[in-house]
Structure formats: C-alpha cells, structure tokens
C-alpha cells in the first residue's frame, strides 16, 4: 500500500517552487534580522506545504480513487497518505532551511535545536493539510478552499512554533520542552482524528 502512493508527480515542481520563492525573497531583502527571518521562514513553509500536500489528493483521478478503494481499507489509505506527505514535507523543510540560511544569512544560535523544530513544524503542517486536502478534494474545489479551511486551524500551531523558534535564536532563552510535547500531542490527535473521520469522506 505504501508503495502505491510513492508516485512522484510534482516533486521537482515543488523543489523549483521553493528555490524560486526564496530567490525572490533574496532579491527583495538582504540579511533580515532574526525576527523577520523567522516570520518569513514559517510563512514560506506554510505555502510550500499547501502546494506540496494539496497535490496528494487533488490530483488523484476518480478511477484511481476507485482502484485504491477496492484494494485498501480507508484507515490504511489515509495513514499511507499521511506518512508519504510527512516524508515529503520533512525533505522540503530541510531543503528550504538550507536555502534560507544560504541566501538570507544565518541568525541561528542553536542550529540543531532549530533544525529539530523545523522538522517538527513540517510534520505538523503536513498532517493537518493532508487531512484538509482530503476534505477539499471531496468538495471538488481547488487549493483555494484548502487555504480558507486550513489557515484558522493552523494558526495556533504556527504561533507555538514561532515562539519556540524565537527561543532558538536568542542565546539566553531555553526552549521550553512542554511546548514541544504539546505540539507532538496535537500531531498525534490529528492522526487519530484523520483515521476516525476519513472513512466518512471516503464513501461515495
């Protein structure tokens, strides 16, 4: 089942998207200070995630969905999708982190902690948006409705992530471990909800 999902339609498209966006940013501003850097980084992450993850459900044709329907249970299917998008988004996060620090300077004080945070954030974003992509695909809408549905839901997690990463920029602040655990708990809840609720979306 996992192998079914690993068809890379638009992998290079997303890489190009990341590269182009960050290059535009590089043209627009040079060497922003840490706070601006942080804000820009997470907003770019958000848009990368929407572009990368939206493809996962919106591009599936009706016939292919029927085929998946016949060979897999909805729980397995959504778990496979979540896992695939997680891996995709983790790779994309690392890439954009690398490009960001290359082009826009590197204000990080604690590189390893921040990399961990980026991975955690990429994971959270990909989980939430995978499920929303499933909803949006069923509503036969484009990616616009996904943004409408998703932004209010993702705001709290983004706020937590930004606060955490501000702590990673300041040498004196320590990263509060409870907030990290909170994010992990939220992610676990998203997975649980997706497994419970997806069967209802699946039937047609």
């Amino acid at each position, binding site marked *: 089942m996992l192998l079914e999902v690993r068809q890379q339609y638009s992998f290079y498209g997303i890489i190009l998207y990341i590269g182009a966006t960050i290059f535009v940013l590089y043209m627009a501003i040079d060497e922003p200070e840490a706070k601006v850097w942080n804000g820009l980084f997470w907003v770019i992450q958000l848009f990368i995630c929407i572009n990368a993850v939206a493809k996962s459900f919106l591009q599936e044709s009706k016939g292919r969905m029927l085929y998946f329907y016949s060979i897999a249970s909805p729980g397995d299917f959504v778990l496979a999708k979540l896992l695939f998008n997680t891996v995709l988004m983790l790779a994309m996060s690392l890439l954009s982190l690398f490009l960001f620090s290359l082009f826009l300077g590197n204000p990080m004080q604690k590189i390893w902690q921040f990399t961990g945070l980026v991975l955690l954030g990429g994971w959270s974003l990909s989980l939430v948006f995978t499920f929303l992509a499933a*909803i949006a695909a069923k*509503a036969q809408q484009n990616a616009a409705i996904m943004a409408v549905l998703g932004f*209010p839901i993702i*705001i*709290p997690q983004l*706020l937590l992530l930004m606060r955490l990463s501000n702590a990673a920029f300041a040498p004196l602040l320590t990263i509060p471990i409870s907030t990290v655990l909170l994010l992990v708990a939220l992610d676990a809840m998203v997975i649980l909800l997706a497994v419970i609720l997806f069967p*209802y979306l699946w039937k047609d």
Partner: protein
Amino acid sequence: MYKSWWKIASILLLIYTVVGGFLMKVPALPALQETIRNLYFHVCMWFAMMILFTVSVVNSIKYLRTFNLKYDIYARHYAAVGIVMGALGYATGAIWMTYTWADPNNPAFQSFSALAREPKLIGAAIALLIYFAYMVLRDSISDMDKRARISSVYNIFAYAMLFPSIWILPRVMDSLHPGREGNPALNTSDIDSSMRIIFYPAVIGWTLLGVWITTLKIRLHLLKEKQLLS
C-alpha cells in the same frame, strides 16, 4: 406551544440579568469600577458561543452516526447562531476595552495592532474564522448528502483542533485580559460571590435565548425543505 417553559425561563432570567446587573451593588475595583457590570453580558456571550458550537459538533457527530439530514441542519444553524453570539461578544468586549485598556497615557496601547495581539482576541478570531470557513465549505458543495457528510467531518475536525488551542494559547502568551491562569470566571477567587448570583443565571439566560433563536431558524429551514420536497 408545547414545552415553552424554558423560553419563559430565558426571558425571566434575562430580565433578572439586566435589572440586577445594572442595579445591584458591585465591588469597586481599580481600573474596572462600574464597567465590571459588563461581565454579565460580555463573558456570557462567549459562554453561549462555546455552548452553541459544542451543540453543533454533537449534532455533526449524530449525523455521521445516523445519516439523518435533520441533524446536519441542526448543526448548521447552531453554528450560525454561535457566530452571531461571537460577534456580539466582540462588540461588548470592544466597549469594555474602550474604558479599561485604551489609556492614552500608556504608550503600549497606542496602536490597534498592539491591542489586537491579545491571546483571547486571537483565539476568538480563530474560532470565528473556522466557522466562517465551515459555512463557505457548506455553500461550495451542491449535493445535499455530500455536503452534510463533508461539512460534518470538517466541523468535528476543526472543533477538536480549536478547543485545545483556545485553552492553551492564553496560558503561553502574555495577556492583559483577566483570567489568564485557570478558567476565566469559573474560578472561585476570580469573581465576588455577590456577582455570581447574577452571573450564572445570566449565562443560562443568554444560552437559552441562543437556543431559542436556533430552534426558530431550524423550524423555518425544515418547513422550506418540506415545501421543496412536496
């Protein structure tokens, strides 16, 4: 009319709230003074909003269990009236804020954006945006059963994501808003006992009023459906 006792109760409680709220003695606190009477209106709006949204989600779950379209209509209208309550909560909050926070001598409060960066305001904005998105999602699907199913799923998912964040965010961010530690207005140390005898009836009264409006909307909707079908 059958079972009208709770409507009468709602009116009586609201009369009691307004009369008692404006006339009874309140403890005079610095910076709040008489504006504390707004507690009977402002806080109750948010309580009513949360209760109505919760009812909406319960109806969505019921719909997914039974696939009876009636519950979907219920869920939709409870969410709509919840949005109205939320908007009223903002309005009353803005009035209250004008007299307590908007201090021209305090440089921290000079711009709107400084005030708006307030966890309670953000949380409420998220809640309202989510339910606006719910309405948009509903309107974008034309097929009735599909609309009911998909919007129910979104309703449950969004609710489950929303409420942790409403409870968590104010505790991790700095805030001017009272009731940062613990549950606002439910804490025994938060409000004076003389205020509590009006506050709790006020919450019940406003919530019942919301439910009443909702049932009217639901009946109208069901009648329309009936006309369409026949």
